[in-house]
């Protein structure tokens, strides 16, 4: 603790050598089960450290080892190499069984985020059953995003860092097949021409939005 204070007060001195910074980052990432942000690491390191560079070094060092340094959104974590999963039966946590509706809803949110409830319904062609969104929220895989700037300002859903961590994704941009889907135009929202029977969205959105908020967010 003394070292740290010293470094803050005597910031005229240089930051520790990069090898030392790498050790610090290594210790912090090892100690935490959750991903740690660069900002968080730097807040704990002596003044003048470059945690991002230290992590980059560390990541290379662990290539091919039994644990890996992985990126999760804005943060970093150490995770075991997936090919060694068979050793870990003891650690395996019971995976909660998700319904098909929940899995599809999750995928739609991930690929279309920020995504409104009406959009989910439009894509699936059925209304989102009570409890599906609830379950995904509770698992911490989705959260509320910014409201859509469309009439009624409906709430949106986006995926969380926990989602990325769980599925081993660096960012939502790394979702499998994202580029192909975009190239095929399957992520555009295309308004249905005239009256389509599957436009569960249209009307609902109007309703959900139109009245949803004025009482709460009086403008």
């Amino acid at each position: 603790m003394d070292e740290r204070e010293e470094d803050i007060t005597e910031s005229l001195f240089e930051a520790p050598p990069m090898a030392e910074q790498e050790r610090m980052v290594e210790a912090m990432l090892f100690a935490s089960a959750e991903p740690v942000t660069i900002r968080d690491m730097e807040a704990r390191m002596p003044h003048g450290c470059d945690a991002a560079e230290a992590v980059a070094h560390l990541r290379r060092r662990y290539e091919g080892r039994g644990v890996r340094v992985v990126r999760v959104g804005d943060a970093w974590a150490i995770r075991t190499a997936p090919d060694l999963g068979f050793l870990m039966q003891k650690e395996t946590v019971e995976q909660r069984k998700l319904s098909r509706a929940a899995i599809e809803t999750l995928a739609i949110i991930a690929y279309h985020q920020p995504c409104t409830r009406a959009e989910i319904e439009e894509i699936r062609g059925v209304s989102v059953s009570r409890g599906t969104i609830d379950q995904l929220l509770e698992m911490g895989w989705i959260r509320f995003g910014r409201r859509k700037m469309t009439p009624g300002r409906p709430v949106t859903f986006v995926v969380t860092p926990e989602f990325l961590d769980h599925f081993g994704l660096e960012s939502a941009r790394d979702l499998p097949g994202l580029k192909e889907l975009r190239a095929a135009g399957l992520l555009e929202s295309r308004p249905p021409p005239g009256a389509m029977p599957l436009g569960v969205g249209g009307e609902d959105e109007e309703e959900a939005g139109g009245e949803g908020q004025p009482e709460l967010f009086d403008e």
Partner: protein
Amino acid sequence: MTEDLFREDQMSVQERLAAEALIVDVDGFEGPLDVLLTLSRTQKVDLRRISVLQLARQYLAFVDRAKALRIELAADYLVMAAWLAFLKSRLLLPPDPAEEGPSGEELAAHLAFQLERLQAMRDMAARLMARDRLGRDFFARGQSEDVTRVRRVTYSATLLELMQAYARIRTRDEFRPFVMDRDSVFTMEQALERMRPLIGFAGTWTDLTSYLPDGWETDPVRRRSATAATFAASLELVKEGHLEIRQAEMFAPIQLRRKDKH
């Protein structure tokens, strides 16, 4: 004429069998779009090359079959059937230039797009779930280290708890907004409003009671409220620097005077 056309494309044996097979687990389907997607697979082509006309026939066969077997279909299945019948007629008949709205081809293209999009999302969902997953294929640190003796307590709450708390309050049965009998209450705002224009004339010390509004001096309840409000308003005006206030001794009359700005 349209009627004839319908009769003409009676379902083939194959379609009838396909429809029958679907009927078996109609409860297993998630709505008409799901059924359409399943039916489209029998065409064994890329979804982009799907024949929507043929698909419409297959779906109508499915609905007819359900009716024949006296299976109750949910309303949205029937809405879809009606719409597909309409779409079919649009696709079969030569376009009528006088007719409003989107063409049959446009509608068919959009339906194909919806099917392709739903299929894509299902594929992606499957790819997602098949990925290496935390806690199953790869693992986080298993051991939390107790390195320092410093323990800070932090309180946590989830967004869900926050929203549920709010919902709980807002829907509480016994909740009633607090309402007062306003008839005999003279508010401080009213008193302020009344006094502001008057104090400009109070060059000399004037008794506070002279500021009471008309009709509030006699009834004791009203008089009490008006006096309290006027007194509170006076204090407010003193605080703002518009007024001076004095009282010679306990229970003596309270007097007010305009304070001149320097």
